[in-house]
């Protein structure tokens, strides 16, 4: 049943120009960055060879591409997610889902899965760029895998936050702004809180504050490190926002 709803959301996304615009924009921007990095790499390659343990092409070319994508997602996910619940409430189509024999959990997870599937498609397409380097070189598959996993988790985290924002209002654009505000706020709060607390020597609260910032957690993946603490932080954040969404929709049903 979750897949039925996810499929419907995917279909709705591709029926709107927004999804295609985002896909095109992301690919153009990333391809440009990728080619630029590749060009730079070719130029400094002679010097790299003389270094004792030189950084590889994955680190110098692929890693920045994924970092850029992480920042683009910060802007794109609120736009892609804004329709999920807000528009259904505005158009009064939510009734179809609420009257069907589905639990709220299924509805929320279905919508979440639909959006995540679309974002993972973007991640997948982006992965093709570094993979194309296999034509003339070697890749660090460990680092690449860590980047892909990190970005996939990051996209899921952003989706959960944006989905929650979408259930707060019946105005899609307001939902997008709330989602963007939440994501940016969490990024800044997580960063400053973690740094500030760590500066005072409070390591445990600093580690806890890290839960708030999915981008901070992504940093360890970008270094090629599959840090289980980061994974747990992201999954925790994701679960909290999904539960908040379900509870919020349940409250709407009671309050009218």
């Amino acid at each position, binding site marked *: *049943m979750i897949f*039925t*709803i996810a499929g*419907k959301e995917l*279909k*709705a996304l591709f*029926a*709107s120009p927004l999804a295609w615009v985002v896909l095109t924009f992301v690919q153009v921007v990333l391809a440009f960055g990728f080619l630029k990095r590749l060009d730079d790499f070719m130029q400094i390659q002679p010097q790299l060879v003389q270094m004792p343990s030189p950084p590889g092409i994955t680190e110098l070319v692929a890693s920045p591409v994924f970092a850029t994508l992480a920042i683009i997602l910060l802007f794109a996910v609120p736009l892609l997610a804004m329709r999920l619940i807000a528009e259904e409430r505005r*158009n*009064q*189509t*939510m*009734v*179809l*889902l*609420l*009257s*069907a*024999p*589905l*639990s709220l959990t299924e509805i929320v997870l279905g919508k979440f899965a639909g959006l995540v599937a679309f974002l993972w498609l973007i991640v997948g397409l982006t992965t093709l760029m570094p993979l194309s380097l296999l034509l003339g070189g070697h890749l660090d598959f460990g680092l690449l895998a860590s980047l892909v996993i990190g970005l996939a988790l990051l996209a899921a985290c952003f989706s959960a936050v944006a989905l929650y924002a979408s259930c707060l209002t019946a105005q899609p654009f307001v939902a997008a702004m709330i989602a963007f505000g939440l994501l940016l706020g969490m990024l800044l709060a997580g960063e400053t809180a973690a740094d500030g607390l760590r500066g005072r020597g409070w390591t445990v609260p600093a580690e806890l504050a890290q839960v708030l910032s999915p981008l901070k957690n992504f940093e360890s993946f970008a270094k090629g490190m599959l840090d289980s603490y980061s994974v747990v932080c992201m999954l925790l954040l994701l679960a909290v926002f999904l539960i908040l969404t379900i509870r919020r929709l349940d409250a709407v*049903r*009671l309050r*009218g």
Partner: protein
Amino acid sequence: MSLELKRGEILGFLGPNGAGKTTTMQMLTGNLAPSLGAISICGIDLLDEPTAAKARIGYLPETPPLYRDLNVREYIDLAARLHRVPKSGRAAAIDDALVRCGLAEVTKKLIGTLSKGYQQRVGIAQAIVHRPDVVILDEPTIGLDPNQIREIRNLIRELGRDRSVILSTHILPEVETVCDRVQILHHGATVFNDTIAALTQFQGGHMILLGFRRPPAADEIAAVPGVTRVEPAGDNQFRVSFADAADATDEVVRRAVEKSWGLYQLTPAQTSLEDVFAHLTRKEEQ
């Protein structure tokens, strides 16, 4: 208020704007949670087992919940999937719903491009595709042309044969032609709940409407045995009520001929639903 529906019964659910009809229907379909009370659908408690209970309901809200980006068939297919119609019978169920609602020719069209009447039909198809035991329709004939209205009424009657239907509407003749029972809601409470047949008896027995070319005084008609009340109805017409058992029509006609009142009209003026509705829902204002 309490609302009860038997299998194979079509209930007309009436009330002035803001009486709580839509709220009641939203509660019955699980869109709103009641703060008090119980709802059971075919013996399944809606609050305890919402999925099992909802599977037996088909609901067309006031604004049909249509996805404008989907075509008719895709949309009905989605509705069938969401209502867990098993894969084996799904195509047949979809075709059946499309044919029944007269949508067979527009299956490939985008819902957003359809006229209001067709959109309304898509909404009805969505409510019946999973063959629910209870169909709840909130103003289903709004925005339809007279032919379509007749088709939809036939469809509702057909549905009422083996299922239960709750029909909310402001079009009172529709209720009179389609429904078995009427429940009128006012300020969130039931003020009338009985069969259509009982309606005619509601305001003191039978009534006829008489028209005379040379009208007598009202007292002369009132003098006929069995007549309980005579009201002038303008244009030399009178509305005459009889006691429950007696039918004094014969006697009235005999006297009219005898005294040459010039009788030109005699129509049974049953208490119409409209009268009952106005009577019950305006009481407080008077």
